[in-house]
């Protein structure tokens, strides 16, 4: 009964975390105003700094979809605090394990027959936990299968979690409701899509067919006739997850091969298909000993609108940064600055954008990039920490940046993290110089 012992942190507990922050922030105001009685000329900057700090501390303690949202919203601001990256691997909605009887019931419901008669063999013990369900092993008609089963009621839990995180995100980002909705709707849409197994199955088949030509990347075969609204049957694939793969000390050549496969997989989708697997999480890949990879999960897919893609692509080109007029034009198009911003505001956001782009896009500026570079990642973290505590950033009152960037930035961030862990050197210009 081990699987049932994992009791997820309750909604109440998560809510109390937000309440605590509310108290802390409230406390900061009291401290601020009592100080102000003694020093009337005290300005707000210290207060803003304290608030930013407390909110940040709370967010880094949160798990589940609350963290995911907070993390993505902050990543969109070019902020990547180190504390987040440690939790990145856990940053998803974690459903509790399904009991054996529920597994049987769900399969019976969607396959129309008990799994013990439907499959030639079926293991009632889960082989793996997926974020919103679990994977069981089975066999039918000579096919070794991985059968993914979703926990009941996930979509509604996701929606209620989002409601929970909304007020704090609003406070953290200091946005108007309409602007916040723009980001929230994007996140909600993706999270709900993740809970839609029928869509996932369709996209898995579509993307794995379109990516079939890629070197060193493979996909499991999917079986729509043995799937349903909360069940996906796919071919069982052998291989190691990232940590297991690295534990065997693969050669640099093998690491590079795996890294290149990952790089090509993502950049081909983003730049050629304009539709991408948007969950660059190590758990979604299996690594073979020779460095080939297998992609497991198309639950989260971002379709990139044409006009947004044009701006995003421009941002990745080194020339953009050296041409101030063109740069400002792109910043305007992407909604980082607005025509009615004051000169000061414009300058502030252009500076942030230039600094963060120069840093984050560094791999795109070279033919080859060595992702094992500790200094590079250290620099990104340090910048992220600094920005997160920057009171000026919290003073902004408009949405800065397109909602479409949220999942793309997250994808690149995830990809960079895996490549860093692999210590791979990768040909990075490939998909940007083409087309």
């Amino acid at each position, binding site marked *: *009964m081990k699987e049932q012992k994992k*009791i997820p942190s309750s909604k109440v507990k998560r809510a109390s975390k937000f309440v605590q922050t509310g108290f802390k922030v409230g406390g900061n105001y009291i401290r601020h105003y009592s100080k102000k009685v003694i020093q009337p000329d005290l300005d707000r900057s210290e207060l803003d700094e304290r608030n930013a700090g407390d909110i940040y501390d709370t967010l880094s303690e949160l798990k589940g979809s609350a963290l995911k949202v907070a993390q993505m919203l902050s990543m969109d601001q070019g902020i990547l605090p180190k504390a987040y990256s440690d939790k990145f691997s856990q940053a998803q909605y974690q459903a509790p394990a399904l*009991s*054996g*009887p529920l597994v049987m*019931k*769900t399969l019976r419901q969607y396959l129309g027959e008990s799994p013990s008669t439907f499959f030639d063999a079926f293991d009632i013990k889960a082989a793996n936990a997926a974020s919103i369900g679990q994977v069981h092993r089975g066999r039918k008609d000579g096919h070794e299968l991985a059968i993914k089963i979703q926990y009941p*009621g996930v979509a509604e839990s996701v929606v209620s979690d989002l409601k929970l995180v909304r007020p704090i995100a609003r406070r953290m980002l200091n946005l108007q409701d309409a602007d916040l909705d723009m980001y929230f709707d994007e996140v909600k849409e993706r999270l709900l899509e993740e809970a839609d197994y029928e869509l996932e199955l369709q996209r898995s088949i579509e993307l794995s067919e379109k990516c079939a030509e890629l070197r060193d990347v493979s996909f499991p075969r999917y079986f729509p006739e043995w799937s349903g609204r909360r069940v996906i049957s796919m071919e069982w694939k052998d291989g190691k997850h990232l940590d297991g793969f690295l534990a065997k000390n693969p050669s640099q050549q093998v690491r590079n091969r795996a890294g290149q496969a990952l790089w090509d997989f993502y950049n081909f989708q983003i730049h050629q298909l304009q539709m991408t697997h948007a969950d660059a999480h190590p758990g979604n890949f299996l690594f073979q000993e020779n460095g080939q990879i297998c992609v497991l999960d198309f639950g989260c897919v971002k379709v990139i609108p044409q006009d947004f893609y044009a701006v995003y692509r421009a941002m990745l080109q080194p020339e953009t940064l050296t041409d101030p007029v063109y740069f400002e034009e792109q910043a305007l198009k992407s909604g980082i600055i607005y025509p009615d911003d004051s000169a000061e505001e414009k300058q502030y956001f252009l500076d942030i954008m230039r600094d963060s782009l120069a840093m984050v896009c560094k791999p795109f500026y070279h033919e080859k990039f060595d992702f094992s570079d500790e200094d590079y990642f250290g620099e990104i973290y340090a910048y992220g920490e600094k920005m997160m505590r920057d009171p000026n950033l919290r003073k902004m009152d408009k949405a800065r940046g397109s909602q479409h960037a949220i999942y793309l930035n997250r994808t690149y961030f995830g990809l960079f993290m895996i490549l860093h862990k692999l210590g791979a050197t990768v040909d990075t210009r490939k998909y940007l110089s083409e087309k």
Partner: protein
Amino acid sequence: MDTPSQIQLAYRAYVEDRCKKPESFEAFSAYLKSQDIELKGSYHSLTRIERDIVLGTFTESLHRLENAEEYLEYSTREKVLACYYTWLEELGEIRTFLKVLSQHSMISLTTERFLKSVEPVFKAYIEDLLNEGSDTGEIADRKIIESRYPAVLWYNTRFIIQYWLHDDSQDYERSDAAVEKAVNFVFDLLAPNLLDSGFDFFRFLISK
């Protein structure tokens, strides 16, 4: 088909077709007569028929469980889960019927009369399971309150049925989650837990 089953089927069809109960037992007997079905003294009240229909779903569930090979290998907790899932499937067959009946009752359906005939059967079934669970150590041996366990699970059952009746989620999946969570909660209470070690520690301290 025996007479009571025939009458139960006719009653279900009557209620489901008209979306309402017969005015009286007499009105229903007249209807039966018009359908060439004889009462032969099997029933004297509508409530009795209703109770038997619900009881029928439960006994059918127990029958299905006994014939499922995986059931024998389940732990006590899993057996109870399997029982609820199977029963909800069976109740699903008469959901429209239950919904119509629940419109008629002032007090909530489940706490009312329809589950009454299930109660003794359920409690007897649970008692057997719990004894099994005590033997394997899955259920805590707590002398005085142990006898209350079947009652606790019966409350749990009423909660689940009530939840399911009001569930409007697709495929009633929220009810599935409710079953998982409710059963886990109850079994975490019934399993040896902090209470037992605390009580044991307390007894040790005062025993000198």
